């Protein structure tokens, strides 16, 4: 009971400090922008720990954060093996192949207005479909190894990147293109010096959406057949063994991988499109 009261107290204190931070003079500084969400996350973790202990929640339902952390530390080797199999071999390989293929396709489509008008509505529609559904088909075509996972990822990231790149390439104004023509710039020069840079914010939008899709695709594909390692495999077998601390450790790895992946792409975007209004503060 004391622990439950303590949990509520922790919540109130955390919220109060954040309230003070938000009203303080340094409210727009980088430190506050970092400290406030960090404090919020820490408060939630602390409450989770106190509530699980206070209410005596069975570890089969919801393990405490400390138990998950202990399991995380003890199983580092297994987690690393799963991470390389699913995130690096499956998701990252598929992500690069899929994004590159979509990019090349967009450049090709861009030269033919007829194709562009026909492909864009279809691409937009397919990008909204639950493409994960083809995972079992691709697993049966490419086998249980990482190749089938990469294939699912390729199928999932292709259309968002394609649609965004084609839209981005259409972003330049007539005036800008005319200026290039007065410089007597050819197709490739216009593409490289004007249209691709102008398309970058859109391309990166597609690339960022695709990071999460890539991980989802790689994990789901493992439910339909995988070697005896990999994140999706470990999660399903651990749920079956009621080893929920292991499941949560695996979720932590997935969250970490997803955030780093997204953050990495966002960082590259900041470097590449430093001139765009959304990147200047």
């Amino acid at each position: 009971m004391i622990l439950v009261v303590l949990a509520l107290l922790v919540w109130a204190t955390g919220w109060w400090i954040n309230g003070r931070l938000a009203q303080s003079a340094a409210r727009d500084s980088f430190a506050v922008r970092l400290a406030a969400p960090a404090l919020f996350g820490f408060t939630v973790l602390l409450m989770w720990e106190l509530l699980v202990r206070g209410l005596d929640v069975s570890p089969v339902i919801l393990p405490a954060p400390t138990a998950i952390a202990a399991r995380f530390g003890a199983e580092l080797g297994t987690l690393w093996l799963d991470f390389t199999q699913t995130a690096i071999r499956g998701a990252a390989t598929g992500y690069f192949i899929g994004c590159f293929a979509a990019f090349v396709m967009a450049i090709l489509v861009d030269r033919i207005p007829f194709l562009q008008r026909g492909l864009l509505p279809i691409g937009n529609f397919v990008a909204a479909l639950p493409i994960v559904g083809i995972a079992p088909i691709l697993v049966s075509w490419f086998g249980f190894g990482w190749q089938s996972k990469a294939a699912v990822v390729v199928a999932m990231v292709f259309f968002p990147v394609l649609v965004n790149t084609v839209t981005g390439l259409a972003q330049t104004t007539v005036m800008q293109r005319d200026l290039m023509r007065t410089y007597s710039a050819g197709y490739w020069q216009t593409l490289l010096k004007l249209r691709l840079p102008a398309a970058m914010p859109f391309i990166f939008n597609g690339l960022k959406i695709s990071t999460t899709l890539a991980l989802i695709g790689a994990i789901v594909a493992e439910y339909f057949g995988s070697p005896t390692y990999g994140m999706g495999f470990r999660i399903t077998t651990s749920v079956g063994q009621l080893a929920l601390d292991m499941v949560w450790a695996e979720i932590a790895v997935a969250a970490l991988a997803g955030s780093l992946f997204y953050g990495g792409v966002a960082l590259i975007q900041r470097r590449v499109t430093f001139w765009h209004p959304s990147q200047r503060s």
Partner: protein
Amino acid sequence: MRQALPVLVVLAALLAIWVVACIPMNIKLALTQAERVGVDVVPPDVRVRQEMSGLALALRNPSVIPEVYTLDRPRLPAPGQVGRDFWENTVERKVTSKRSLVFHGWVTLSATLNGFFLGTALGILLAVGIVYSRTMELSIMPWAIISQTIPIVALAPMIIVLVAAVGIEGRLVPKAIISAYLCFFPILVGMVAGLRAPDRMQLDLLKTYSATPLQVFWKLRVPTSLPYLFTSLKVGIAAALVGTIVGELPTGAVQGLGARILIGDQFGTPIQIWSALLATAILAGVLITGIGVLQRLTLRRMGALQ
């Protein structure tokens, strides 16, 4: 008409690629089957055929090519086979049948809509909180972004265990939670942008009318945010459907379009997987079009659309 023609041409091209792709994909199975009924195939050894490419086999056995479109369990079913299976399981089968795609589509649709409403409500509430409270913006917005980088499928089996532990029966609730998790974010982002869309001038005008904060909210902020809301609702409903299918796939569900895909995989009946996928695509199209119609009706009544 000018817009429809390119789309139709591209669709026809895709269909043609599909039909042609069936030949190299299915030729090995077709040859094995033809050999069994006594047709002479080249080369006659199965092990040699395993090593050869599908295209080379098709060129050497042109008489077997028609067979690739009539296999029971092809690697790549022909469009006609998928269409026939889809027709049989929607129009010709009773809706109450366990094999009717209409029945399974309904299960998926109800979970999607439940999750969609849950996610929309959550997204709008959070957006209102974030627009009005600086504390909430600072502490919750970054976590909302991080929540979307966590692959939801990792959480899906977890959510099912948790919901069962709390004592809720059935598969509807966990699926709805998963789809709400995926669809709340686009709505949150759209609504934050929408509620902040009124500019200084408009807010100042309402101040000169001595409007209360509640009046500012209902008479200015909400109407300005509606175009933003509908744009994000379209993204949201697609995300909700993805969530439901993901919720059905890895969890051993027995009802719903995702379950049809799963069962088709376990029993090795690819045609069933493909027709379930077709049903999913149609469902997605109907849902997005539905939101689009709602958007046009609402915006027209508000006078924002001619």
